[in-house]
């Protein structure tokens, strides 16, 4: 609690009270070599005993789990775009093709849920989304014919922020900073107040919904633990272990940061100018992520916030304003009694 609320923090575990903690651990997810096999999703659920999120065809390309949530700690995003991937060669020219459908579908995907995100285990209130309907694919695009296409895949996960809003706002101390600098929920302490859910700038953590008799930890906040139990025993987290293409790399955050830098330079040299890093910068709004990514498009395309700032960054101001408001209330009340006695 004592540590600063924003900016770089090279000793995040130490500042949380750990004596001689091991190097900070994290992920580097290189989406440029992700093949979308979803082994990470399954391995994660297998190892951590997470229930399925329901059987729903979402029509979001090959993504049928939808988003990170209480019961999906690794989520593979699939994005179809009428754009070219680096210098990839396609044979679309000379083919009898109309306008792309991707745009319309990318816009409309959420409608598959017809507003009921409980299908994703992420939100138990129905909302009217008023999404465009699915008919007439390509209607959204003004293009005459499609010539470019790429299929992006990316495995998302908890960022294990240097300044973790979920941890900061937790009123019970259930969310804690481990010796590895990761952020973990203690199932036996969490009372399900749900405060961490809106606090997370990435929409990662959530309160598990479901049938209390058949599903474990219902009502409790759940998210990736970076396999605290495995790394504690010198093992690799389940997702990284299962990833066949090393798209998910586990290791010391400092070293991963270097690796990420080198990788993005290589890709730029190979003509993949879209390649960019995400969450690797300790000077960003969350003091840098423990789980960083190499993306091939703007973060929001993957459902990530483009420029997240931990909410507690403004907490001092908030308390100050609250104090002033309290004083004005006191003053106002006093004023109400001043003057005529009757």
């Amino acid at each position, binding site marked *: 609690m004592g540590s600063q609320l924003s900016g770089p923090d090279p000793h995040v575990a130490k500042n949380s009270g750990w004596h001689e903690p091991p190097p900070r651990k994290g992920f580097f997810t290189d989406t440029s070599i992700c093949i979308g096999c979803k082994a990470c999703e399954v391995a994660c659920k297998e190892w951590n005993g997470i229930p399925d999120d329901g059987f729903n065809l979402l029509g979001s390309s090959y993504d049928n789990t939808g988003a990170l949530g209480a019961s999906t700690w690794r989520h593979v995003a699939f994005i179809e775009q009428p754009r070219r991937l680096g210098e990839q060669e396609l044979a679309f020219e000379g083919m009898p093709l109309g306008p792309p459908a991707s745009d319309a579908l990318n816009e409309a995907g959420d409608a598959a849920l017809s507003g009921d995100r409980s299908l994703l285990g992420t939100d138990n209130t129905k909302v009217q989304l008023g999404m465009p309907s699915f008919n007439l694919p390509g209607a959204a695009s003004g293009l005459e014919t499609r010539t470019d296409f790429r299929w992006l895949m990316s495995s998302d996960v908890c960022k294990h922020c240097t300044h973790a809003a979920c941890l900061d706002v937790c009123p019970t101390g259930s969310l804690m900073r481990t010796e590895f600098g990761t952020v973990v929920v203690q199932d036996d302490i969490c009372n399900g107040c749900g405060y961490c859910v809106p606090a997370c700038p990435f929409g990662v953590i959530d309160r598990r919904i479901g049938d209390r008799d058949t599903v474990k930890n219902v009502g409790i906040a759940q998210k990736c633990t970076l396999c605290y139990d495995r790394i504690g025993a010198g093992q690799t987290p389940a997702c990284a272990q299962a990833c066949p293409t090393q798209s998910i790399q586990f290791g010391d955050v400092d070293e991963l940061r270097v690796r990420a830098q080198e990788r993005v330079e290589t890709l730029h040299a190979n003509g993949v100018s879209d390649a960019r890093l995400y969450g690797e910068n300790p000077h960003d709004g969350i003091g840098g992520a423990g789980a960083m990514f190499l993306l091939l498009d703007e973060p929001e395309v993957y459902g990530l916030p483009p420029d997240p700032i931990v909410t507690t960054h403004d907490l001092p101001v908030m308390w100050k304003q609250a104090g002033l408001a309290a004083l004005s*209330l006191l003053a106002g009340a006093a004023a*109400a009694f001043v003057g005529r006695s009757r």
Partner: protein
Amino acid sequence: MTTPGPAQQQRAAPEPSSQAKRGRRRRGAGRDGDPVVPEVSFSSYYGRPVVKASPWAADIPAYLFLGGVAAGSSLLGAGADLTDRPTLRRTSRIGALAAVTLSFVALVHDLGRPARFVNMMRVAKLTSPMSVGTWILTMYGPGAGLAGAAELSGLMPRPVRSLIEALARPAGIAAATVAPALASYTAVLLADTATPAWHDAHRELPFVFAGSAAAAAAGLGLIGATTADAGPARRMAVLGALGELAAERRMESSMGLSAETMHMATAGRLMRASRTLTVAGAAGAALVAARSRVGAALSGVALLAGSACTRFAIFEAGQASARDPKYTVVPQRERLDRRP
């Protein structure tokens, strides 16, 4: 089923389109028949939210409202006690006790694991408004409780009664000193999140809530106190209402894009209702309440309802702003683009 005739071919004809932006979702307000706000273009992942809406149900806005009523009432109660306004004192003290009790119930009921409420007592964290709030409640509760109990002491055996009556004033004053914090911290509770509409409001929201609390408590006083005793309630009603409305205005101008959620759908309707009720209540308090007991009561009801609407409106606006990626992505994207 047969092979498609011309009709089907027609149906399958492409629609012309204005924009050809990749992965854009153009969705201003305007659904649910609300005033249309200019469209923004931005990328999203199948229109899914970036941040998650809070899992909270009606308990939490109710808690915000009741906490405000309790806080304001303790102030009124203490003042009435010191200035010897028995009916106002009694109404406020009992109102504070009832409100704080109900708010506590609402708070616990919203937990995923209510039985584990006590875990709130494990830590005291300044970074967690909810933790801070728990301790504020803990400090506020006994005083408000004792003061409230004193008003009901007629039901109690003599020795207890005299003891409680002796303690009532210090207890009431103790509660009153904590009360302002109780009224304003709830604003930080909402603001200290990634929910666009709540966080964007973090500078003014405490003032909105403080004003709302004052107006609500004053409303309660107007209902319960005689016109003779209710003077301070009338003045507090006007001050509170003016404060709330002024703060709201400021807030909406400083919030940016997410301010539009205050005018949309449920939140919009509630916000309009809150304005009307609060203005009406305040006017009634200023002009009618001193002469007519009935007018006072009606003004009081309007003020209470107005305050409740404010809390629910702001809660709903936040939830809506979280569910639509627009309010997360667009401001951040603009911030990035501004950066060199």
